[in-house]
């Protein structure tokens, strides 16, 4: 298990996890946005590796991926962004999130060696199921990088055993059946399901998808160990493409606001 992820969950306080697409709207601005998010107190940062066909994402993150790719973002860009963060902050966990083809194409071993040398702590691959992830898992495990697994409201108990069997770092509970940035989190269901997941795994459980504001974060953190907020941040970027100062200010105040939701 990544020592940084292990450490951050030691104090049992609730965690704010943020997601933005790396390289959106461009390389320089993306680094500045992440600096700001970290400065304002995000506990874990997820950085999206843009993909041409983001099947699990709604229009907001689809557009972000497109903006990033159009600006030439590839894995090398993402590595540079991670490097930039790690040079400034030795303790914040960095989790990369994306789709399998980009990694497969880069080469699993090359990819893992690279993210290990930069100090990435975890990986979430949306379209890679446990039955097919052994090679990636073994490579990551040898470097103490966590392969973070997804659980949905549809996951039955048999499947839950398969998923939690080799899970590490934390578990990612998808609060809805659906894609990012669309439906609102189903909090009633989450309150029923998360205690059940805890029967299978002692890992922290972070909830994501459909979590839009401070109230959602606050409600969800009554049951989960933390909440991921993604599309709402990306939407601020999208709405302020022509005004960087306003973009930064709105991202700042939004993260400050969300932090209040978990306190």
């Amino acid at each position, binding site marked *: 298990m990544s020592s940084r992820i292990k450490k951050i969950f030691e104090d049992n306080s609730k965690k704010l996890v943020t997601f933005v697409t790396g390289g959106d709207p461009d390389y320089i601005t993306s680094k500045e946005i992440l600096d700001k998010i970290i400065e304002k107190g995000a506990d874990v940062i997820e950085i999206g590796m843009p993909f041409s*066909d983001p*099947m*699990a994402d709604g229009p907001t993150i*689809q557009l972000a991926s497109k903006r990033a790719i159009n600006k030439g973002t590839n894995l090398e860009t993402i590595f540079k962004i991670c490097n930039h963060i790690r040079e400034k902050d030795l303790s914040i966990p960095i989790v990369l999130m994306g789709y399998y083809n980009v990694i*497969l*194409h880069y080469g699993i071993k090359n990819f893992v060696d690279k993210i290990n040398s930069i100090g990435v702590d975890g990986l979430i691959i949306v379209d890679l199921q446990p039955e097919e992830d052994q090679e990636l898992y073994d490579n990551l495990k040898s470097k103490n990088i966590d392969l973070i697994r997804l659980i949905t409201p549809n996951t039955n108990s048999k499947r839950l055993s398969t998923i939690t069997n080799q899970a590490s770092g934390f578990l990612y509970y998808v609060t809805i*059946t*659906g894609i990012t940035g669309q439906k609102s989190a189903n909090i009633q269901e989450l309150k029923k399901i998360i205690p059940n997941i805890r029967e299978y795994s002692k890992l922290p459980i972070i909830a994501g998808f459909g979590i839009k504001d401070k109230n959602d974060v606050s409600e969800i953190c009554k049951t989960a160990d933390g909440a991921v907020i993604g599309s709402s941040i990306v939407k601020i970027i999208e709405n302020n493409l022509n005004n960087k100062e306003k973009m930064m200010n709105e991202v700042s105040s939004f993260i400050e606001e969300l932090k209040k939701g978990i306190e």
Partner: protein
Amino acid sequence: MASCNGSKSLKDAMNEALRDWVTNVQDTFYIIGTAAGPHPYPSMVRDFQSVIGKEVRSQIIAQENKLPDLLIACIGGGSNALGLFHDFLDDKEIKMLAVEAAGLGLSSGKHAASLSGGKPGVLHGNKTYLLQNQDGQIEEAHSISAGLDYPGIGPEHSFLFEQKRVKYESATDEEALEAFQYCCKTEGIIPALEPAHALAALIKIAPKMSKEEIIVMNMCGRGDKDIFTVADALKIKI
């Protein structure tokens, strides 16, 4: 499922269908018309389509009292080809030829020939040959035929390609258009643009074979749906 995003291609429609399915999974079935996508869809579609090969076998034996020497089919995702081939895969002496869409030509970068011009990758829940760039981003396919306009191919075809059990070639838009016209004039049949690719290969290969040999080509669709596309390509006003 209407495709609102991307280039409004088959690839984007598949993305949207998968997004809709995961959103409405409680009351929705995902159905796909080609032998691709997440397991078990490729094998399900293959099994449904395999009736083509089974009927070919019984009919050709009834009519000719022997099995064919060569099977030809066009290939986008690959369901009609797999449907024709599947029942004959163990008949080692039967040759099989599948024809991908080469669009404006394999070297133009504007084609849909995943096996001839792609590399293995993962998309839409299956590992198969895909058209992709140096960063692993999926590229847009191009073909005059909408049914072949997809940057991937069913995973079983990738397997048969690597096993060399089936030979995979390609035909350009132009070759398909010529074959379309040839078939209309000589047979009185309007082929769809998809099997027009198979016809293009057939026209090349048939003269090299003996008259005793039997070729079965899958005419997998009718071309009345394509007359406007063809007229447009031939600059004919209708």
